[in-house]
């Protein structure tokens, strides 16, 4: 591998500023909807006392899970010594920070009392996995920040492998924590399982990589820098493995439930009778999010083509979104089993859900809040790349040597 030269992206053409302007617009609209939600109360959203966490949480968790996944690229270079990945370390670390900022912005602004963020940051109940997550998120910023600094600062360069190892371990703990937010909920059929933690970890691998590939392809095309086919194909092969790993864990999750008799009702709901959730699972996650990208990446005709890698990455994001929607919102839509062995025939508080499950229609306000988080991530990543040398001037195959061990 030749010496890698990094530089800021020029960002002088109208297209770049138009993209930034559009992202800024989405952020402004998102902040406006936050103001509306906080002013009016959450009744303007589709969330209720039944569907407690809605679409903002899907966007937030998608970005938070992707954050640790995007850092994987840097870890593969630093921790596992894969030379071809090393030039991608800086942008990988920066992108992971930006993804986390985007995700947390949504979570915080969806709170009933976002003005009490300081309370959340200073008053901890250490038995709560949620409180642990706040510490993990803050720690992630610090550790990945130091890692990025060590990678970029010549004097500190000798220490960056240690920082890289710390960041790798931290990110694994962080995603375990994110998965455990649901895994620790004993009352609901969809959750209460340890498999959610590793499922979230492998989901972060595929989702983070897919977003990373899309960003890399977009920026290198936009800035007319070289991005070698060899490197892209190596990333594409990795994506196949990660997609298969996610599918394996999803399979285990459902197979376990199908084995446990009292979970049959829930499984029947997700896999057969759940309306939008069943559709999202089979069409969104299985077909569009797993089978299609696998086919695009591995069938001889499309495999290796740029459009196919981009499409497979985009579909991976669609699949991850669908899967999170099914797990998080589907898990709440299925009514709580408060009285095992009995059916609720009348209730003053919707214990007997219409059609067997609770309905949820996200309002425009919460969708705009979610899009705000995505926009913050893209804007921050682009802006950072413009002011600091995160991206190699060239990722051509003769510079990177994509086949290096």
């Amino acid at each position, binding site marked *: 591998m030749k010496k890698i030269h990094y530089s800021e992206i020029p960002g002088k053409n109208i297209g770049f500023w138009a993209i930034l302007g559009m992202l800024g617009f989405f952020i402004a609209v998102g902040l406006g909807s936050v103001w509306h939600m906080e002013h009016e109360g959450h009744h303007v959203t589709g969330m209720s006392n039944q569907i407690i966490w809605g679409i903002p949480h899907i966007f937030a968790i998608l970005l938070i899970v992707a954050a640790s996944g995007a850092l994987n690229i840097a870890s593969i270079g630093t921790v596992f010594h894969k030379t071809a990945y090393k030039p991608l370390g800086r942008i990988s670390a920066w992108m992971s920070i930006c993804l986390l900022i985007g995700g947390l912005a949504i979570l915080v602004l969806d709170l009933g009392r976002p003005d009490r963020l300081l309370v959340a940051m200073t008053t901890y109940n250490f038995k709560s*996995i949620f409180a642990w997550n706040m510490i993990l998120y803050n720690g992630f910023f610090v550790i990945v920040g130091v890692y990025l600094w060590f990678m970029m600062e010549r004097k500190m360069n000798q220490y960056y492998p240690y920082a890289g190892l710390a960041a790798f371990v931290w990110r694994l703990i962080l995603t375990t924590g994110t998965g455990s937010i649901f895994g620790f909920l004993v009352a609901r059929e969809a959750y209460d399982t340890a498999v959610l933690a590793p499922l979230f970890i492998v989901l972060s691998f595929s989702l983070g990589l897919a977003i990373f590939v899309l960003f890399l392809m977009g920026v290198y095309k936009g800035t007319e820098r070289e991005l070698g086919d060899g490197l892209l194909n190596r990333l594409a092969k990795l994506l196949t493995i990660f997609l298969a790993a996610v599918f394996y864990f999803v399979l285990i999750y459902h197979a376990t439930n199908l084995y446990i008799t009292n979970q049959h009702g829930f499984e029947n709901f997700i896999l057969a009778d759940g309306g939008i959730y069943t559709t999202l699972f089979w069409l969104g996650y299985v077909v569009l999010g797993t089978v299609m990208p696998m086919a695009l990446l591995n069938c001889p005709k499309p495999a290796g083509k740029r459009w196919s890698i981009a499409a497979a990455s985009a579909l991976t994001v669609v699949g991850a979104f669908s899967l999170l929607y099914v797990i998080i919102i589907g898990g709440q839509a299925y009514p709580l089993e408060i*009285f095992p062995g*009995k059916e609720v025939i009348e209730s003053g508080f919707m214990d007997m859900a219409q059609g067997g499950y609770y309905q949820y229609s996200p309002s425009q306000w919460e969708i705009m809040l979610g899009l705000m988080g995505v926009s913050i991530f893209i804007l921050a990543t682009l802006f950072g790349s413009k002011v600091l040398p995160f991206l190699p001037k060239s990722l051509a195959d003769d510079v990177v040597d994509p086949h290096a061990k």
Partner: protein
Amino acid sequence: MSNTEQPQTCQCDGDSCDNQRRNFISKTAAIAAGTVVAPGIFLHQVAQAKNAAEAATDAVRWGILVDTTKCADGCTDCIKACDERNGLTKENRPEIAAHWIRKVTLRDKATQKENSLPLMCQHCEHPPCVDVCPTGASFKRPDGIVLVDKHICIGCRYCMMACPYKARSFVHEAITDQKAHAPRGKGTVESCTMCVDQVDQGGQPSCVTGCQHGAMLFGDLKDPESAIAKKLKEINSVQLRADLSLNPGIRYHGL
């Protein structure tokens, strides 16, 4: 007073003066006796109440026994009493309205037997809502009452995700006409407080006093001499979701 100090100005005859004097003395005596004895009776009545500065202790564990065999189908007296006492308004939006207590009618899948019962916060000994709350806003008092500290609740709703009984409500909109004894706040989570202010003054939760059918019995689960403890010893009762081992303070008979 004028009767005794200024007899020369008295306009009445001897007998009527005596009567007035007698009336005055007897009324004074009655008032004096009332002033002395009444606080004693009152204090006796609230002997179990604690003063405002005194912390709740684990010497007691408050609980409610619901007798579903007495709970009348279609009766919502307990819900009305709760709503009125705590200033809860539903405004035809059941999906976002606050429900501290609700009426549920069940049918056994195997036997088709039907039951009607009130369902509220179960005031668990090991409450999942308290475990998951990031700031500690959800807390359990030593006497077993589970509450939300409205000052540090950030409105994340994780406790609602964790509650196995769907007993908590998020305040989705601004609240007007609040009751001073039941403060609420937009953007925070709330649930049955077991009318803690009444309980602290030796009273009972409003749902219990509001029940016309005697289906709810409130008391100290730890005191073997309490009516609830004696009843629990005498009859069969169940905990909802006993499989979760949360040891709720609310027990049901007849389920």
